[in-house]
């Protein structure tokens, strides 16, 4: 890691110089980060983060607790400023001005709401403070969810508060909605209802969604695109379809990693004295008859990346919740 310098974050007027070097992967990206890093005193919460989040799609940010997911999301939303690197969100500096703020919605961890304000007053708050607020949509959703407008937010259940926060984030009609572990503390029913509301909104409005989770199993049904973050670094960021098509689990007689063909990149490996199992990433087909290939779901691929980090081969325990 090079010595980190401490640049001031440039104003949006000079944002051209902030773009990551090299060709853009996506024609329109809602988030473009280059070399992004954030340090708290001695510890780097996020390092060398270079990625693009595509517009109009649902992106999942997954990784074990403490991997830096919240840090990345708060950098995107503009509640933190980077220590090194650059980040551009919806074409501007995060939280640069009111217009920029209107483009990004945020549902923070534990879905903060004002305990003393009623549901209706929260909607009023949104209406007063957001120029693109869609009140009809918000009222209709609140009605459909069965929330009592005159009830104080402090008295709602966890699932109801999460849905209120989601409604607030959606009704301001942002280009990007960021959610930090929105369903982590919800029971399965509340979780399902939250995701239903979210997916319905995605079907209805042109919006990009970035949600983080340490529960991997929700991802395949919900995400188009996945970013895996482990130990403050991005391990892989790709479309779900590509991930599924290019990753294979191979098991066969024992052999070392350097005997594998050059175009097969090892993501995860496990050996017994007789047998080797690898998860590899490759563009070309696997033709070696010695291997038995097993189809990999998204969950398997993500787990392989999470477990296969060089610094900690044993891996951190993860939640696989069905």
């Amino acid at each position: 890691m090079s010595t980190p310098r401490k640049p001031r974050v440039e104003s949006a007027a000079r944002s051209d110089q902030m773009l990551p070097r090299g060709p853009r992967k996506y024609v329109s990206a809602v988030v473009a980060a280059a070399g992004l890093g954030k340090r708290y005193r001695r510890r780097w919460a996020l390092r060398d983060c270079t990625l693009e989040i595509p517009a109009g799609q649902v992106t999942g940010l997954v990784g074990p607790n403490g991997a830096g997911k919240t840090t990345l999301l708060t950098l995107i939303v503009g509640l933190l400023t980077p220590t090194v690197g650059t980040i551009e969100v919806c074409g501007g500096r995060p939280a640069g001005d009111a217009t920029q703020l209107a483009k990004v919605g945020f549902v923070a961890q534990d879905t903060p709401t004002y305990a003393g304000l009623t549901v209706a007053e929260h909607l009023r708050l949104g209406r007063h403070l957001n120029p693109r607020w869609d009140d009809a949509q918000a009222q209709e959703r609140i009605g459909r969810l069965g929330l009592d407008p005159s009830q104080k937010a402090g008295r709602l259940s966890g699932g109801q508060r999460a849905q209120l926060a989601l409604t607030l984030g959606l009704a301001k009609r942002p280009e990007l909605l960021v959610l930090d572990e929105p369903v982590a503390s919800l029971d399965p029913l509340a979780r399902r209802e939250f995701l239903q509301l979210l997916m319905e909104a995605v079907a209805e409005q042109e919006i990009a969604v970035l949600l983080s989770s340490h529960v991997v199993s929700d991802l395949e049904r919900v995400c188009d695109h996945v970013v895996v973050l482990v130990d403050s670094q991005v391990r892989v960021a790709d479309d779900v379809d590509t991930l599924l098509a290019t990753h294979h689990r191979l098991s066969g007689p024992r052999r070392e990693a350097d005997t594998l063909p050059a175009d097969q990149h090892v993501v995860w490996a496990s050996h017994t004295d007789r047998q080797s199992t690898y998860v590899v990433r490759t563009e070309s087909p696997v033709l070696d008859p010695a291997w038995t290939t097993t189809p990999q779901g998204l969950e398997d691929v993500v787990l392989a990346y999470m477990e296969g980090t060089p610094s900690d081969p044993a891996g951190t325990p993860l939640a696989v919740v069905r």
Partner: protein
Amino acid sequence: MIEFSLDSRSGVSPYLQIVQQVRRALRLGLLEVGDQLPTVKDVVAKLAINPNTVLKAYRELEREGLVAARPGIGTFVTRTLTDSSLAAHEPLRRDLVRWLTKARLAGLDEESIEALMTSTFRAVHEDIA
């Protein structure tokens, strides 16, 4: 109107499950020509899956000529797959019966027969795909 369900344990990707469920409904006569498939929004609101998944499934069905999308209105069935089509494959069915008898005589029990069929099916399927 058909209702979809997702089995997250099956190992089959969600979009394929939807395609399969539509095909199965067509085969069993639950869907007839002219019936409307649920809107993307409705499917997504019920199953909590990505809308692109549903779109992909509907496009696949459209490619196979089973449904057609009418913009602004919905997606409608244009062709069925009733059992009558299966009747055309009588020789294949007879081959299958013969093979099953052979397997039985070789001493395989039901589970072994099913395992053999599934693994061979998968292997062949992968080669083709």
